């Protein structure tokens, strides 16, 4: 098979041992090659010490989230062709401490999920399994839009307030609370809304929508935040 699409890019990668970006020439076989392929090429052929994280390579685990040309993306899902540039800049996610190069400590992000206590508590303790909601059920449709978070932390990184406001829960945790508030099977349901009706919660969200823009699984996070505000403004906490 001919390799007519083959070209070369300059991969600029943020390094922890150097203030400047490290620059590498990377041959790319196709426009459909991924940023992760370029990072792996550098690790295998130029610098084995390059630090980055990946696992599933299918956009499901969220572990390869980085900032590519200024936008939070999954390295395994971002094609070089989609960037429309021969210079690809890879940086670590914002609002999270950098462990090495473009690899971040996800702890602050995961702590927001823990702090939100957004775990389903069944309202029917006698049932051993949760009732399955049919796809056509109205509530199921509402929740469906907000579901599918892979906890990659891209929204947390893109959110203007996650970096500046330590106590802020962030989009992912609040989206989880919205899902539970809508889920009739959850015992606490809308009671959880009272917990985010604070200046560290939903009131800190100004609806800029950066979270929605970068979400790799296209969860309408901004709309979710508006929905939360709407529910809270009605004072429907029970």
């Amino acid at each position, binding site marked *: 098979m001919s390799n007519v699409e083959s070209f070369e890019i300059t991969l600029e990668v943020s390094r922890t041992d150097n203030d400047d970006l490290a620059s590498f020439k990377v041959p790319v076989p196709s426009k459909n090659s991924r940023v992760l392929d370029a990072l792996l090429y550098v690790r295998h052929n130029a610098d084995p010490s390059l630090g980055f994280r990946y696992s599933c390579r299918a956009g499901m685990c969220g572990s390869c989230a980085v900032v590519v040309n200024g936008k939070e993306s999954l390295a395994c899902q971002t094609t070089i062709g989609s960037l429309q540039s021969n210079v690809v800049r890879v940086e670590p996610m914002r609002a999270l401490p950098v462990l090495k190069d473009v690899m971040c400590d996800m702890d602050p992000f995961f702590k927001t999920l823990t702090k*939100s206590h957004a775990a389903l*508590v069944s309202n029917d303790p006698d049932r051993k399994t949760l009732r399955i909601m049919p796809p056509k059920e109205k509530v199921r449709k509402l929740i469906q839009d907000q579901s599918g978070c892979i906890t990659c932390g891209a929204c947390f990184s893109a959110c203007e*307030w996650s970096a*500046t406001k330590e106590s802020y829960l962030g989009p992912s945790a609040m989206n989880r609370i919205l899902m539970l508030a809508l889920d009739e099977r959850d*015992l606490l349901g809308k009671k959880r809304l*009272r917990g985010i009706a*604070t*200046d560290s919660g939903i009131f800190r969200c100004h609806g800029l929508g950066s979270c929605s823009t970068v979400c790799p699984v296209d969860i309408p996070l901004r709309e979710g935040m508006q929905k939360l505000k709407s529910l809270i*403004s009605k004072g429907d906490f029970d």
Partner: protein
Amino acid sequence: MKETYLSGNPLDLKLWRLQRSSAIFVIVLVVAHLILQYIVFNADAISFQEVSDRIKSGVILAVDVVLLISVSIHGYLGFRSILLDYINSSRLACFITYTILFAIASTILYGLVALRAFI
């Protein structure tokens, strides 16, 4: 499973609602104020006498007083919201909140005293 959830802050919720509801008053009353000022009274230049004559009407006075209260609440709470974006200390946030509440009350009081001079 333990039934745990965040507790929330009733004051934050009240101030947030107050800011949203005051926005409705501001929009409606600013339009009403402009209509009264430039269409009903056809005011070209604002003078003490002209304002004094206008404010003798109970309706105009009521519009101005409610507008004063709404603008003070909405503006100061908006300013508070901007400040809280950049503050991580909960003690400082609390201090700012009460300072803002004091500023709202002071501004409304000062506005009412100023309006009284025209009556």
